[in-house]
Every structure is written in C-alpha cells, then in structure tokens.
C-alpha cells in the first residue's frame, strides 16, 4: 500500500483544478498583457482567479500580486517593503528560509521563539521599543514543519502600538488549507500564499496587500501586476490557483475537522506503540490539523524515512538541502528541542485527500521501523 503523507511539502492538484488548467495550456495562447481577443480571454481568466484569491482574505482583487509561489511572495514582501520604506525587518527564528534569508541579508533582526516555536511577544515588544526604525515585522501564520499557529492578529496589534510605522507580513502558505485566512491573518498588511499547498498547482502563488500596503518590485521588466511583479503571468497555473482557492474555501471546515481527528489518532497511536516517543510540539500550543510531528529518541530520521519508503510511505523530517540530504531543523532548534531528539523527528502531513487507510498503514509501519532501527542502534 502507498501512503503519501507529505502534503506539507506539496499536495496533489485537485481534479477540478487540473481540468480548469488544461485549456490554458494548449487551447488559449493569449498573453494577458495583450489587447486582442485571446489576450483578453487570458486576462479575464487570471482576473477571475484574482477575485477568488482576494475572497480568501476579504481583500481588494487589485491588491493580489501573483507570483511564482510562496518563496517569491515572501521575498517580495520583505525586500519590497524595505525597498519602499527602508528601515529594519524583524522576524522570528522559526520562519521559512524564504523570509529568514531576506531578513538576515537586509541586516534585519531574528527574534527567539517560545518552546512551541511561536514568536515571543515580549521579545518582539522589546525589539520594537529598542529599534527606532522597524518597518516590517514578518510572522508566519502556521509553521511549515510543525503546523504551529502564531497569533498574527495579536502581533499586528502589538506592532501598531509599539511601531506604528511598521507593517506586518505573514507567510500563510501552510495555513491556507486549514484556517480561515481572513480571521487568522487579521491585521496583517501582506499575506503570502501558494497554490500547491492546498490542491492547486506548483508555480503559482500570491502576495496579497491590504490596508494600502505597497511594495517595490523585485522582478523588473514589463510592469505586470500593476508594476509590482514583472513577467508574463503563468496563466494555467494561476487559473488553477484560483479554482483551488474557491474549493478550499468551500470545504475547509469539514476537511479540517476530519483530518484533525485522523491526525490525533495517528499521533496517539504512535505514542502508545513506540516507547519514549513524544509529540514535538508541547501540549496546548495551537496548530493546524495538517501535520503530525513526533520525535523518536535513539534513531535517525534519515534511516527511518528510508524504511518507511520501502513500505510505501512518503514522509519527511526537517527541510531538505540542495543535495537532498537531511539538514538539522532550524525550527526544532529554535523551539529548544535537543539535537538528539531532533535527529529522530518525523513529520507526517495530510491533505484533503488523505484517507483513514493511509493513517492505518502508517500506524502499522512506523512503530515496526523505529523498533528495527533501535535494535540496530550502536
């Protein structure tokens, strides 16, 4: 049996998404920036998608900037805000590298997090008071490794109080499938999403601007996306992104409830079947239902993933580096998880298509694989 349990890395595109995209690959050649009928058709298609993405956030469709995905949206948020406003960017240590790297490169400040990996609000307030020219605070809605949810609206309120000249960005890439973004991102001025984390295609994402936020372009050229992101729009992928946004809004609540039950059953089963196993995220820390994260002391996740793959389970541990090797997780390090436990971590992540049978399979395979590795430990 095959069990794809790596939806936090990428989800399969929903059939309706694929069907909607196909005509835009072969039948409709138009470039949305043109003026003839095929061009206008393409323009209409991406603007329909723009409406659908805007609806996720109660945003103005004109403030949806399509990008190639989450990384570009995050880069555009950090570099684009600093490009307009100057000053210093601040983020938490568990942010995705697409935020962390631009913040560090710009000379920004990376703040510690609590044991759940949530940004430390006290440290944030102190930083905002101590640094005169903070212009951007970036705090992810949900973490890509653990699913832990940050209090974005509390952060936004705190920023408004301590640094009224700063705007708030949130990377909502891992939240879109599970949370009502309009609520979860309330107060954030810029929101990043990407299609392939919620049943859309790879290669299309968006940075959504709100409350008059502006960004300087990172990609320069033809001035598409209202001068905020040049380059011909990826029409088929953007069409798919739009359909996925509509579908996820329609069935998110039902899916989240079903998957949350599955996730809890899986974690509880693993904890009872594997001695010394523990949830990586402390009890009581809010998280999306989409990720089960467990540490198995005494083994290495790299070896565990190998055995799981041989039994048909696709999963992951920390993020992968360019070579495909496992790198130690900066997220778990920021949470204070000791390295010995972190090297034995496992992330099993779910999507709308995840079945009970897949979870049953994981419950049958994972404990045996951990036991085998522990037997061979030296």
């Amino acid at each position, binding site marked *: 049996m095959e069990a794809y349990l790596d939806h936090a890395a990428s989800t399969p595109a929903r059939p309706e998404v694929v069907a909607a995209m196909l005509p835009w690959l072969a039948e409709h050649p138009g470039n949305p920036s043109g003026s003839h009928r095929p061009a206008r058709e393409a323009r209409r298609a991406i603007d329909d998608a723009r409406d659908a993405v805007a609806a996720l956030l109660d945003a103005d469709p004109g403030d949806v900037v399509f990008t190639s995905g989450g990384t570009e949206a995050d880069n555009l948020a950090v570099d684009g805000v600093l490009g307009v406003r100057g000053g210093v960017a601040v983020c938490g240590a568990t942010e995705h590298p697409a935020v962390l790297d631009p913040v560090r490169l710009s000379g920004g400040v990376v703040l510690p997090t609590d044991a759940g990996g949530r940004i430390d609000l006290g440290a944030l307030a102190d930083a905002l008071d101590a640094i005169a020219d903070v212009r951007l605070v970036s705090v992810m809605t949900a973490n890509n490794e653990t699913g832990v949810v940050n209090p974005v609206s509390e952060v936004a309120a705190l920023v408004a109080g301590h640094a009224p000249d700063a705007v708030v960005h949130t990377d909502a890439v891992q939240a879109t499938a599970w949370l009502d973004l309009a609520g979860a991102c309330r107060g954030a001025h810029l929101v990043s999403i990407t299609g392939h984390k919620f049943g859309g295609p790879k290669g299309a994402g968006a940075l959504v601007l709100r409350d008059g936020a502006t960004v300087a372009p990172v990609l320069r050229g033809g001035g598409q996306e209202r001068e905020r992101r040049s380059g011909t729009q990826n029409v088929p992928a953007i069409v798919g992104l739009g359909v996925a946004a509509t579908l996820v809004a329609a069935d998110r609540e039902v899916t989240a409830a079903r998957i949350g039950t599955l996730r809890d059953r899986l974690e509880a089963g693993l904890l009872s079947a594997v001695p010394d196993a523990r949830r990586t995220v402390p009890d009581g820390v809010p998280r999306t239902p989409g990720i089960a994260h467990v540490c198995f002391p005494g083994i*290495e996740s*790299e*070896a565990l993933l190998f055995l799981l793959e041989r039994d048909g389970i696709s999963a992951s541990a920390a993020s992968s580096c360019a*070579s495909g090797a496992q790198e130690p997780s900066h997220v778990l390090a920021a949470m204070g998880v000791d390295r010995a436990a972190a090297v034995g971590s496992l992330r099993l992540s779910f999507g709308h298509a995840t079945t009970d049978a897949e979870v049953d399979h994981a419950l049958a395979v994972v404990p045996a694989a951990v036991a085998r*590795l522990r037997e*061979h*430990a030296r």
Partner: protein
Amino acid sequence: MSAPPVMVAMSGGVDSSVAAALLLEEGREVVGVTLRLWGGESDSGCCAVSDVDDARRVCDTLGIEHHVFNLGDDFDRHVVGPYVAAHAAGLTPNPCIECNRHVKFDRLLYRARALGFDRLATGHHARVSLRSDGTRRIARPADSAKDQSYVLHMLGQDQLSGLELPVGDLTKDEVRQRAAFLGLRTAGKPDSQDVCFITREHGRGDFLSRRIPLTPGLVVDATGAEVGRVEAIELVTVGQRRGMELAGATAPRYAVAVDMPTATVTVGSADDLLVDATPVGGFSWADGPVSGPVRVQVSAHGQAVEAELVGDSVRWAAPHRRVAPGQSVVFYEGDEVLGGATAI
C-alpha cells in the same frame, strides 16, 4: 535463494557508477546512496552538490533508487576534527583512511544493515578474497596503477563479510569503457584528487589557519645551526623536500625530523632520511594479529617492501625512508592485506 540486496556507496564518480551497474547486471536489487559529509567549500570529491547530482542521474539511467545520507556530524567528529588536531600535533594525517574507518565502513555499513542491506558495495579498486578457511581479506585489484587496497587496510572480518568491490576485477580503462557503453554521464569524469574538504584554490594552509594557530618554525641542520625558516611548522611533513632547499646548496635536502615544542625542522640529505626501523601503533587486523616477515607499504601508491614486524616496530630488510608520523603503514602477504598501523 536469490542474491542478497546491495547498497552501493556512490560518490558521483565513474568507479562507483560502474559498480552499481555491474551489480544490477547480476540481477541484484541495488540501491544507490551518496553521502553528504562536508558542508564547507569543496572542489569535488565526495561532497559537492554536482557530485550528488551525478550519482542521482546515474541511478536514474540505471533505473535504481538513489538516496542521500547526511553523515556530516560523523565526518566532522571522526575525520575533519582529528585531521586538524593531527596537524596541530605535527603529524601527517590521512583523512581518507579515517573516513573509510569511521564513516564509510562503520556508520554507513551498519546503517545499511539496519535498513535491511547486509551487503555494501563501493567503487574502490581492490578485491575481497575468500580464503579456504572462510576468512576474507582485502586484496590488490586488476589495475595496479589504481590500487586502493592501502586505504581499505582497516577492514576486519565483520566488515569484509558484507563488502563487495565490483570494479576490482577491471582496469580503469575497462571501467570507463563500460560506463561509456552504458551511457553513464560519469564515463569521462576525472578521478577525484586530494582531500575532499580542502579546495585547490585555498589549500591546506588556509584551511588549517582558520582552525588552529600556525607557528613559524626554524630550519636547522644536523649540527643545530639555523639554515632557514618555515611559515608553519604544522604544515611540514617528514620526508618533504619542498621548502627545505638551502640557498646555494647543490645536494637535495629533506625534512628529517619535526619537533613541535621548539618549532624546529631538522633537515638532512636523502641518506639522513634512511632508518632501520619505524615505530608504529594503533593496529588494525583483517583477521587477528600478525608478526614476523611481512611486506609493508607506507603510501597509497607506494611499493610494498620486505620487513619484519616485531612488537611495535617495523624492522626494514633494507634501510627505508622515514615514514611521516601519522601515516598509515600497511602489512601485506602477497597481494593480500593483513592489517595496518600508524607510524609514530
């Protein structure tokens, strides 16, 4: 019973590419693994992303699975750290041998077993010989110019029982021809050279200077008279000629001894380098300790010469150049490796 599945350690070079291909031709279940060992700068060798790409694409061509294992912590602990420490102590380490000892044929071999692969293969040019008493030894390969038996000398029976060296029966030319015939992208790839974690551009001195203080040293002759200076005593190897030449001298000069506490190199003639015996320690054996007459090889591509192993001393049949402390001294019987030790 079908042949056991085998995990192939693939560096991204032509030898391990062909090793995987040959095992596949035997009808075996083959899985390729590339180790990620070093996160710093690298020309090539084992760790560059381009080498991982080569290994992966060769596996794609062969139609086998490819995995990457990150054993960087082990590599730091067992190879890079001791390498730096050895230089700091004035020794001449051999990091490739320590990598084989602690990483490839320890961590990887035992991980392979844990993952259900009792057989591990590499692309080394050497053979595993099976003796009539059931024991195994590392033996010299078909291509004597590419002989890597020296760097595998530390393997014991447990490791040898699970080891396969498929290209040991081929010459390097035959390996390349086979790779080309199979359309493997590594067919013409140059052999890796030198230490994988040190770049040609920056070199050993730069690498060490970022990790340990380098000490300027005096060069003296046998009478103790100063005849020159070196920038870093830690970089001088016994037997080294480069940098030891004296202004105006006609006869070649060599580093004969390095004394770390006084940061002094004593130089002498080629004859001054000759010794009757070399002290050794840190033995490893293929199948239990050996003493008495053996053939002894002191570098990867050197000749094995006659000697007698008496206790912790290698007594040379004919006067032998000094062996730089830290170098591996490998004992052979005919074409087979009996074991090895480290020069003191």
